[in-house]
């Protein structure tokens, strides 16, 4: 039976069918739905959100050391966080199969960089396999687990935005349990990476890579599809589909294993075609590998480019010099952009409105609140990586002294705080300074679609569990100044900020209000507000919060009454307004009330 599935659903299905016993992940677009699907559909798999990707890989490592088949899933930058266990897992090897699913994001649809995970596989000397549709995504979970067990290595299953979120047909199968016996087996020479033991493991890793390169020569997912021999295309992943789309008559070497590369197969293919082209997203990874074999590559990144994702038209232009499509062409109108925006009633908008009033410099982080950088709020000055904002603010504060005092603040969401904000908070307490940290606690991992975390009180499968007390955590770290506030009370938050910015020691402000999209623990009234349109002076204080429920209505000169100075007024779209009251708080003329 065939079902239509996204790449993420297919990987979850693969985990089920191929006997994965434990799966762990931290949410991150485009990988999030892998664990969500496992949680929702496959109770046979023990699964839970980890606070971050490093822990997810360690939890999966524990399961595989004990003989169980295991999966950890993350977005590309998550592997940076998990790099420490990942690099040395290559040395210890596994026992039960271990697949590490990593989703790249060419074009940075929802990411901060375009790093190419294949470099990590090479760096760690572990195999990396890459599907080109949902069927392969499911099948390759099984292949990854088999390769992992056969070669005693973790395996990277490389996905990308266009695989993870594309849907195609998948043949459904039954679950088969993994082959290894479960149990605790002592093997310190293999599993305790003291220098003396690690020295014995390294040559094994090098030999394993040679064995895997040999294996890659005949592995069926590396295959030559001969067509017209005048052009031979080496391609992987979704780029293979684009190339097939625009040049179906060409000859192809489709690589399912992108590291290590099958040298004989590549040379054989190269010898059978006149012109050799490599079509791959991101870095010239395969291109350079092929060149290192001494094989001439006629075209690669010189025609496809290093930045942003490939597309069918880009690949066609690269292969043929022009697109064959007959487009109707553009309609020449200057279009306003439609960037993502904080939702009506978002508590982050409230917090940023208060921060804006205090004219601070914000060392931000990653989450919905990163959108606070966009106009009209324009209140976020740094985003580097998960958890970085606190460290940046602390370093800035200490290095700049009075220049930063009372100005540089750190802003971080709750899920990001549990991910990697706790250690920089500890650093701040330990080394001191006068930095103010604001934790925007909206009780969920909002940006990726509301996943639970250790602060929400529930697990992946909605089972009740612990809920971290951030105030007590701060206290135990030694913070003496800890304030908890409701960010919707913008004026109160301004006062609290003023006090804490003036303090000569680190302070912690917890701005707590659930995400406006959450149904539970709702503190929003859901009663729309209304603006007195006659009294409104058109000062735009409410408009400049950027709330999508507000609209500035211009008054033309002809429409303007005798002696009327205002050029417009604000109004509220009552179908969008959820009554958060932020516009009421920032209105200096008391013109906004609950609708009758």
């Amino acid at each position, binding site marked *: 039976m065939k079902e239509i599935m996204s790449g993420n659903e297919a990987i979850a299905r693969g985990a089920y069918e191929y006997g994965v016993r434990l799966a762990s992940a931290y949410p991150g677009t485009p990988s999030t739905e892998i664990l969500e699907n496992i949680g929702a559909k496959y109770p046979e798999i023990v699964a839970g959100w980890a606070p971050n990707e490093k822990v997810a890989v360690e939890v999966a490592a524990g399961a595989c050391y004990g003989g169980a088949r295991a999966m950890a899933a993350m977005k590309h930058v998550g592997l940076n966080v998990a790099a420490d266990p990942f690099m040395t897992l290559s040395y210890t090897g596994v026992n039960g199969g271990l697949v590490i699913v990593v989703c790249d994001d060419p074009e940075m649809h929802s990411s901060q960089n375009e790093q190419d995970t294949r470099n990590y596989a090479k760096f760690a000397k572990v195999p990396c396999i890459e599907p080109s549709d949902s069927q392969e995504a499911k099948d390759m979970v099984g292949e990854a687990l088999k390769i992992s067990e056969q070669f005693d290595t973790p395996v990277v299953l490389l996905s990308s935005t266009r695989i993870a979120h594309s849907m195609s047909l998948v043949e459904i199968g039954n679950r088969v349990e993994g082959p290894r016996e479960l149990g605790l087996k002592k093997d310190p020479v293999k599993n305790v990476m003291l220098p003396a033991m690690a020295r014995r493991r390294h040559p094994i890793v090098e030999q394993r890579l040679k064995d895997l390169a040999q294996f890659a020569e005949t592995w069926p997912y590396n295959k030559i599809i001969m067509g017209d021999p005048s052009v031979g295309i080496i391609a992987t992943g979704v780029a293979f589909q684009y190339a*097939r*789309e625009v040049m179906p008559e060409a000859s192809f070497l489709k690589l399912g294993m992108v590291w290590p590369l099958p040298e004989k197969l590549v040379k054989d293919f190269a010898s059978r075609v006149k012109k050799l082209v490599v079509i791959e997203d991101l870095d010239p990874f395969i291109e350079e590998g092929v060149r290192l074999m001494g094989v001439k590559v006629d075209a690669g990144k010189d025609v496809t480019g290093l930045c942003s994702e490939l597309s069918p038209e880009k690949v066609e232009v690269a292969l043929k010099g022009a697109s064959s499509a007959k487009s109707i*062409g553009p309609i020449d*109108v*200057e279009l306003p952009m439609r960037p*993502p925006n904080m939702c009506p009633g978002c508590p982050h908008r409230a917090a940023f409105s208060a921060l804006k009033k205090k004219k601070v410099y914000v060392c931000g982080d990653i989450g919905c609140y990163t959108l606070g950088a966009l106009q009209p709020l324009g209140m976020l000055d740094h985003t580097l990586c998960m958890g970085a904002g606190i460290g940046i603010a602390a370093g800035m504060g200490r290095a700049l002294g009075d220049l930063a005092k009372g100005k540089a603040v750190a802003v971080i969401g709750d899920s990001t705080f549990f991910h990697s904000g706790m250690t920089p908070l500890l650093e701040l307490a330990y080394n001191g300074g006068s930095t103010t940290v604001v934790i925007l606690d909206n009780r969920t991992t909002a940006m990726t679609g509301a996943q639970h975390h250790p602060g929400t009180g529930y697990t992946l499968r909605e089972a009740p569990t612990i809920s971290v007390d951030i105030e007590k955590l701060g206290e135990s770290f030694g913070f003496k100044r800890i304030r908890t506030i409701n960010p919707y009370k913008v004026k109160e938050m301004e006062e609290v900020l003023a006090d804490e910015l003036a303090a000569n020691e680190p302070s912690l402000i917890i701005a707590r209000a659930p995400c406006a999209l959450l149904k539970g623990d709702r503190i929003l009234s859901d009663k729309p507000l209304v603006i007195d349109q006659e009294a409104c002076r058109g000062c735009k204080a409410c408009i400049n919060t*950027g709330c999508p429920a507000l609209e500035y209505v211009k008054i033309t000169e002809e429409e303007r009454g005798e002696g009327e100075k205002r050029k417009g007024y604000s109004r509220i779209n009552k179908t969008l307004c959820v009554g958060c009251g932020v516009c009421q708080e920032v209105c200096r003329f008391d013109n906004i009330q609950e609708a009758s």
Partner: protein
Amino acid sequence: MSNNNRVYNVLIVGVGGQGIILASDVLAMTAARHGYDVKKNEIHGMAQRGGSVSSHVRFGKIVSSPIIKMGEADVLLSFEQIETLRYFPFLSANGKVIVNDLKVLPPAVFTGQMDYPAGVLGKIKEKVPDTVVVDADALAKKIGNPRIVNVIFLGVLSKFLDIPEHTYEEVLKENLKPKLVDINLKAFQEGRSLVKG
């Protein structure tokens, strides 16, 4: 449009939260049920926060790329006026346009920095005279549920594709909560009735 060897390309666009993903899911499942190979792609994540959304649905005997090549969309179904323009170059020279008579103001407009472009529908009709314009939000309210806009459009769209209507109806029945089936089937039929022939 019953040449079964070709790949059919439908691009559905609009604003996050309009039910675009659900509409494209149903279309993809319907095409699969009809026996086509199907691929579909959309961008999740940041687009959900009121941003511009596009969903590519492709079906035919064999489909390679999950995204439509610029200039090869057979139908551009747009849930919002200016989103039609944003994705217009995806449309093929003889493609069809179905557009919702709705303006959702983007931030630069609702904050008074820019005006919403004027005469959008007229400009679309200059290029594609047989464009189908539907005030789907008003129609949805009339039928009795503002959330069925996407299924009204699925009905309109179905008139331009070669998949029998009962296949859509089967997929809708199987994928909706029982209490929502009747109103959605009604919405689907209302959508179909907007296109003559």
